[in-house]
């Protein structure tokens, strides 16, 4: 079952810079009271810009808790293997764990079609209005979740939009975040996108079946992950061959089990 709920989400500008360092010539000033232009008056605001999203995320979190649903937010660059990993994961954990999926794809239903084969209900979030969007916000998840029957569901998996920057900034009310990194990407992704790797609870290093054909330095990649997020579990997997899946499946089972056994 695929529900296309026709949600449109905010357009974003594709532009990223490595870990922000102060750049020469860039003014970082905030006017001290005395420096204000004559004839102006300062009004204190002191509000978080993402307040609305943060509140909506908390509301989602309470709703998911009330329904006993564990929510996993899966993020990565485009093509790292989120959909493939989830297809294989669903095949391993269903029907023992009852799953539902929300997928934020840019303009096709390909991912939703692939994931629906598992038998899990899938909601596709349509983000094509401006030809490409960068993240799922909490209100989008709320709307998408309202199209799912979460009553009997133990695990809601969210495949976020392929992007290592914006999704890290937007809480959706999830219980855990997982980042997928594939060995065909640079080893230094973690240090280029530190917020993403700090925000996540586990990393999946995917496509290890390709290692014999690449000059990829796996130890270096793992060291970079741990430089940004010491002690984060890293699961080395191949979504293609399912190599390394056991500890990853175990990790999910543990976490979902802990939540549903809560009083």
């Amino acid at each position, binding site marked *: 079952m695929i529900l296309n709920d026709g949600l449109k989400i*905010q*357009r*974003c*500008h*594709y*532009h*990223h*810079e490595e*870990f*922000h*360092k*102060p750049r020469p010539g*860039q003014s*970082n*000033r*905030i*006017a001290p009271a005395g420096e*204000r*232009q004559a*004839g*102006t*008056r*300062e*009004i*204190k*605001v*002191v*509000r*978080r*810009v*993402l*307040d*609305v999203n943060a509140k909506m995320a908390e509301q989602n979190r309470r709703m998911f808790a009330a329904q006993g649903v564990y929510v996993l937010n899966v993020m990565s660059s485009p093509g790292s293997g989120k959909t493939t990993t989830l297809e294989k994961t669903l095949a391993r954990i269903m029907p023992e764990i009852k799953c539902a999926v929300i997928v934020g794809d840019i303009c096709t239903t390909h991912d939703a079609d692939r994931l629906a084969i598992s038998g899990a209900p899938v909601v596709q979030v349509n983000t094509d209005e401006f030809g490409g969007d*960068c*993240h799922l*916000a909490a209100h989008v998840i709320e709307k998408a979740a309202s199209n799912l029957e979460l009553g009997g569901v133990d695990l809601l998996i969210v495949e976020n939009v392929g*992007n290592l*920057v*914006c999704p*890290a*900034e*937007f809480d959706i009310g999830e219980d855990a975040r997982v980042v997928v990194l594939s060995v065909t990407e640079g080893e230094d992704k*973690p*240090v280029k996108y*530190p*917020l*993403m790797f*700090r925000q996540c609870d586990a990393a999946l290093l995917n496509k290890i079946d390709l290692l014999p054909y690449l000059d990829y330095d796996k130890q270096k990649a793992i060291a970079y992950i*741990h*430089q*940004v*997020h*010491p*002690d984060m579990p890293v699961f080395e997997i191949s979504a293609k061959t399912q190599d390394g899946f056991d500890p990853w499946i175990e990790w999910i089972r543990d976490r979902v089990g802990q939540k549903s056994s809560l009083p």
Partner: protein
Amino acid sequence: MHEMGIALQIVEIASASIPAELENVRVVRVNLKVGKLAAIVPDSLRFCFDIAVKDTPLADAELVIEELPVLARCKACRAEWIISDPVFTCEQCNSGSLEILSGRELDIESIEIAEEDGNDSK
């Protein structure tokens, strides 16, 4: 990447912060604090802000961004330091158990409005 959405939120919050009794006010500055760990590129944000303010009381406003460093505290030895490279282990004791005290901010501090009766602003 999501700077346009952020810019629209800023305009919304700033507009809502204009005291109700003032009519036809012109906001000349919006003072924003952005932590270096926030996934925000200041130049992109300024660019988007200039588009987002069209036809609002912020049409002439300048977005002033103060970037805040990433300040960490070690949960093990209580050392505090500024993280300038993406290395999140304690400089003193090597522990990886840190509290990020600041660096995630994306906060509107204040707005500044022109003190005039506003006749020339509309």
